């Protein structure tokens, strides 16, 4: 099986380590990965703003680029949801859309792996990204992976399923609401006593980290892939 990597623009440009860590883990599990150089963006920013024609152009482009892959793996629940749940709406239910999986989902549900041989001695709490949780219905998969990480103590926060307030352009168009949501999220994280917030979506982590650093709080953010790549 040849697995294509889809590294969303956001991860590519701002959080490449999440993508690199995903490659490390997949290779450790002897997965044959390749990276189609032509890829750019799945089209979600346009789609969510209402520019569906523009999004459709990029959706078609994605389908062409990844057409030959047995599977596509992506370090983002949000962009995976865009491809799996919204491309059919843009391109028609009959269209052929490359089978795209979120990273944790691919490990647990496709490869059947929960122990990736990682070691990360720290107290962590997991933030569910809305798209992974409610569009892809991934709740337990990332936690199954974290529970098998050596030395890691998983602490659940009371607001794990509450949105962090990012929402793409929402956080720029309605910054005060987005900020209040961020505050609710961070308060819930703080109550756990965790040293790290882990998530499958770097955009959520950017939102949370932006608040933590401005407030000089000692909690760090890290992607699930980077935790799983640690040894």
């Amino acid at each position: 099986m040849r697995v294509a990597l889809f590294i969303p623009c956001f991860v590519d440009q701002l959080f490449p380590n999440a993508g690199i860590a995903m490659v490390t883990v997949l290779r450790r599990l002897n997965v044959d990965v390749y990276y189609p150089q032509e890829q750019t963006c799945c089209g979600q920013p346009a789609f969510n703003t209402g520019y569906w024609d523009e999004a459709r152009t990029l959706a078609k482009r994605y389908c062409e680029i990844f057409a030959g892959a047995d599977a596509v793996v992506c370090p983002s629940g949000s962009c995976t949801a865009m491809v799996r749940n919204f491309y059919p709406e843009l391109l028609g239910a009959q269209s052929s859309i490359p089978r795209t999986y979120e990273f944790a989902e691919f490990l647990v549900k496709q490869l059947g792996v929960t122990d990736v041989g990682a070691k990360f001695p720290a107290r962590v709490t997991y933030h569910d990204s809305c798209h992974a949780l409610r569009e892809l219905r991934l709740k337990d998969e990332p936690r199954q992976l974290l529970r098998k990480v050596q030395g890691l103590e998983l602490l659940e926060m009371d607001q794990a399923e509450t949105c962090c307030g990012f929402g793409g352009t929402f956080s720029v168009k309605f910054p005060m609401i987005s900020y209040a949501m961020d505050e609710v999220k961070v308060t819930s994280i703080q109550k756990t006593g965790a040293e790290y917030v882990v998530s499958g979506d770097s955009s959520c982590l950017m939102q949370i980290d932006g608040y933590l650093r401005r407030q000089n709080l000692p909690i760090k953010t890290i992607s699930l892939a980077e935790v799983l790549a640690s040894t």
Partner: protein
Amino acid sequence: MTTASEQFLRDAATKTADLRHRAVIQKNIGSYDAAVTRGKSRYADWQNARSRAAAIKWETINHLDRYLEQFERNVLENGGHVFWAETAVDAREHVLLLARRHGVRKVVKSKSMTTEEIHLNEALETAGIHTVETDLGEYICQIRGEPPYHIVTPVMHLTKADIAQTFQEKLGTPPTDSAEELAMIARVRLRHEFMTADMGITGANFAIADTGMIAITENEGNARLSFSLPRVHVAIVGIEKLIPHFEDLALFWPLLSTSGTGQAITAYSSLIGGPRQGCEVDGPQEFHVILLDNGRTKLLADAEQRDALHCIRCGACLNTCPIYKNIGGHAYGTTYQGPIGSVITPHLRDAREWSHLPYSSSLCGACTDVCPVRIDLHHHLLHNRRNAIQHKFDSPIQRLLFGVWLWTMQSSIRYAVAAKLGRLALRLGLAQPLLKPWTAKREFPTPPKQSFKDYWRRHGPRT
């Protein structure tokens, strides 16, 4: 003139900065959450109940013409009257006509969002008819001169102390911290109003096609007094309130109360089948149903979003919405707040004026998960956004930006060059002003020197 969108931004900013306000609603919604969790645990299969309810509503809304006419025939047969109101003006004028015909000087009202929607109280007061809200929450709203803050819980934003202070200021009652005493203050005043009212106005939670009855759900008994004591009862019913069969209530009554308040069933559940019959000693002499369209048929004509008419107004989507929990109900400036309001308001009212509401969501989808009639709420927000762009409600600058963005994203080379320049500008601190709304209260990450693309070119492919 301030537009609805500017007003929304201003109010949202004020409300999110008001930490006391946020603490009050989060506490009140917290008790709601606990009650609803208990309520749902009484169901053997909550998801199946939702699916069943959605299927019944789907059938009703997709054959609404038939069910409405059946309902009308049965109301008439039971001795009631039906008026079809196409607009809010039609509905208000009909109420005023009935009031004049019966020499009405005082109206008692039970809680009804449709009457809020058509601004009935103002119309009645202007016509010189004394109008009294009898639901405790609505009564408090009325004496404060505020619209309801929430479609189910009109004063969710107030504490017991706030209510005591309102009563003290507006009614001159002594200060108290006892909920019982506060309720008694309202009860004594309202009892007198019930006894002297000429007309009772209610909404309806359900209108039952095969019996011509309306069903009313409440916890205070005020609705029952409102429709049974005065000479004339007028019920203002949105056309989407129909359910086909009497038996469907067995599903819908508990579903509404479980999602609305966590109760298995509300304290008072009433069925009204017409005016006082010959052998009966009480009840109104006349029973009028006003079937209200007011934009609903526009939504009905939209096959994609028609399921928004499934709504039974339980308020669950408001209570779970992280936006609602932070800005509260008044900031929306609409009759129907929260996710359902942001879905339907652009359809029921002016699509351009209210086009900001579908955007004021992070699309987290929590609303869709809790909706007891499975309305695809957050996807309808996306549909509304697409409609807004199709109708060119966007700014020319935004349109241009997305055009340039698309051109860039269609080539991996253009993308890589633009992104590299962007990262450089960020590292030099040149691009930060553009991100100001975001960075005003948050730190933007320092972009890395190399992108994933750069990494892969150097180290990625195995040789």
